[in-house]
């Protein structure tokens, strides 16, 4: 069936609310407004205000309340409007959700799902354009998912809700309107592995979330020139699926890591380090990176585009590593 990323997330929410009475959705404007990105439109009418809870602009407290409710055995889905505002509840995520199981000697579980929009590309300027999912991937005790496809938008939520630990799901804001085909029986997907989205033999492009489509476009351009790029969608930023990354790099012997985060201290740095640690002697060229320029994301389109990874810059980086040696 034809659907959109937004509708796929909504279908996942509806399924979760129907299947498990412990599930409820809580966040800013998820009810009467219908969700900032219209993801939860209609759910209030269907499930009522007890399970679709409009929260005040109190990120720290409604995320903390999600943690508390999860500790007590509920299965909350907390929507933080965007990753930018998640900085207001960083304490609850890092100091509570991530620590409680270990710090309590295994007694306290936090089976919580936090969803948030992330990313740049919509000309909403510096305070609404962060890509900070890499920060969260730094923290032991949480899992970090980045659904880049309709299948993952539809299927990751249910699996995340079965996880006994906190799971953060980052939905790139430019993806909500993406249309495509989704199987009528699409449902839960596993959340343990990266996926090869396009096979290729000459170079591996490692992407995730909002950079997957750009990397696939880069691969098409490269194919016109006779360069066959393999495109990996990380899907899960924590824990990283080393086997899929390294398996691909060992075949292609070359890699470009694409990251919408800033280069310094980024997730791309982690991926490159792991390739270096485990596949150094399989490489025919130094691994390259395409990251966001180290600047607060500017408002005008031409500057924003220049700051972000683009199909052209990804393809150019790939040509560079293929030409090398």
């Amino acid at each position, binding site marked *: 069936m034809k659907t959109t990323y937004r509708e796929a997330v909504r279908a996942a929410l509806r399924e979760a609310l129907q299947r498990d009475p412990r599930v409820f959705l809580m966040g800013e404007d998820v009810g009467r407004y219908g969700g900032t990105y219209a993801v939860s439109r209609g759910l209030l009418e269907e499930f009522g205000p007890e399970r679709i809870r409009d929260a005040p602009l109190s990120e720290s407290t409604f995320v903390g309340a999600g943690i508390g409710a999860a500790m007590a055995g509920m299965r909350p889905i907390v929507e933080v409007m965007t990753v930018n505002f998640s900085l207001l509840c960083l304490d609850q995520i890092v100091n509570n959700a991530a620590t409680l199981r*270990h710090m*309590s*000697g*295994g007694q306290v579980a936090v089976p919580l799902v936090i969803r948030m929009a992330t990313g740049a590309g919509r000309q909403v300027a510096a305070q609404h354009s962060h890509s900070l999912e890499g920060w969260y991937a730094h923290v032991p005790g949480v899992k970090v998912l980045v659904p880049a496809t309709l299948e993952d938008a539809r299927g990751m939520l249910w699996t995340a809700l079965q996880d006994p630990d906190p799971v953060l799901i980052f939905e790139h804001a430019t993806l909500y309107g993406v249309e495509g085909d989704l199987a009528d029986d699409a449902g839960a997907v596993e959340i343990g592995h990266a996926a090869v989205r396009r096979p290729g033999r000459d170079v591996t492009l490692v992407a995730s979330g909002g950079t997957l489509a750009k990397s696939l476009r880069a691969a098409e351009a490269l194919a016109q020139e006779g360069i066959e790029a393999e495109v990996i969608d990380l899907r899960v930023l924590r824990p990283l699926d080393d086997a899929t990354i390294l398996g691909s790099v060992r075949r292609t012997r070359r890699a470009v890591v694409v990251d919408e985060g800033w280069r310094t201290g980024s997730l791309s740095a982690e991926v490159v380090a792991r390739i270096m640690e485990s596949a150094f002697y399989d490489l025919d060229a130094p691994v390259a990176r395409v990251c966001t320029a180290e600047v607060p994301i500017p408002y005008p389109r031409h500057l924003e585009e220049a700051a972000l990874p683009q199909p052209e810059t990804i393809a150019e980086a790939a040509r560079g590593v293929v030409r090398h040696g």
Partner: protein
Amino acid sequence: MTAATSAPAVSRDHGLELLRQMTRIRRFEEKCAELYGQGKIRGFLHLYIGEEAVAVGALQALGPEDAIVATYREHGHALVRGISARAVMAEMYGKATGCSRGRGGSMHLFDAATRFYGGNAIVGGGLPLAVGLALADRLRSERRVTACFFGDGAVAEGEFHESLNLASLWRLPVLFLCENNLYAMGTALERHQAQLDLTLKARGYAVAAESVDGMDVLAVEAAARRATEAVRSGAGPFLLEARTYRFRAHSAYDPELYRQKEEVERWKERDPIPGLEKKLRESGLLAAEDLERIEGEVKAEVDDAVAFAEASPWEPVEDLLKDVCAEPPSAKGARP
């Protein structure tokens, strides 16, 4: 503020139990200070000496079905709630037999069996958790109460205001229990609050509030019972402020440059333990041998806890990464 009770309306058995619980905490904490000096307990150590009447009085109002969220000054609350002195002391040592397997130490006592949810060491960070625990009860139509302890320092945090508002907005069964010991670490209340009457802040969020003399265990118990009853009846959250004082330094690292010795001495005259003894004696509910018996029982319990902690094993280093996450379940069926 609730008037101090002149003649306690309390049975001999209950009066002696309150006295025993406060004495337990006092002697346990004194032993902790001693063990800290010997290097047996490390890290931060926040003692509850002087504030015992608050935890002992307030926790009388809760049943086993209720939940507790406490701060990093929570040894007393844990003991009164029913976590064994052995498990608390072993946690102080960092031993595997501690109530958090030794992973948390003094500031992070947890016990799922008694619904004791920490031991939270970020000031204000426990309040949202309490709101969530209460939300879960509300969604499941459980008539349970979550008691959330925090200090006056937390009142300056945004989470205090957000949590009172949200709990009130959704009429959640939270008993907010402010242990106002007049200092946010070393900053006096009047140096961190523009409005010194903390109950007025609650009224700003349409939360019922009351202050009580936190040095009077009977007054605390009476106020906590009233407040808990109101919360359990579905009236929404309640803020109970207990005005108290810590006799010792904030933590073992605190040189106490910010307050006068005379002030500490004045508060010590209101020590809740002799205070209760006096009341019980005047009412003919306390005999000299009662005190001896209580001290003897408490000493035996504390000594036993120390011996247990000493003899307990360390968690093996191989378990370092255990319980960061649970073993991952795999989704049935689909691959991406």
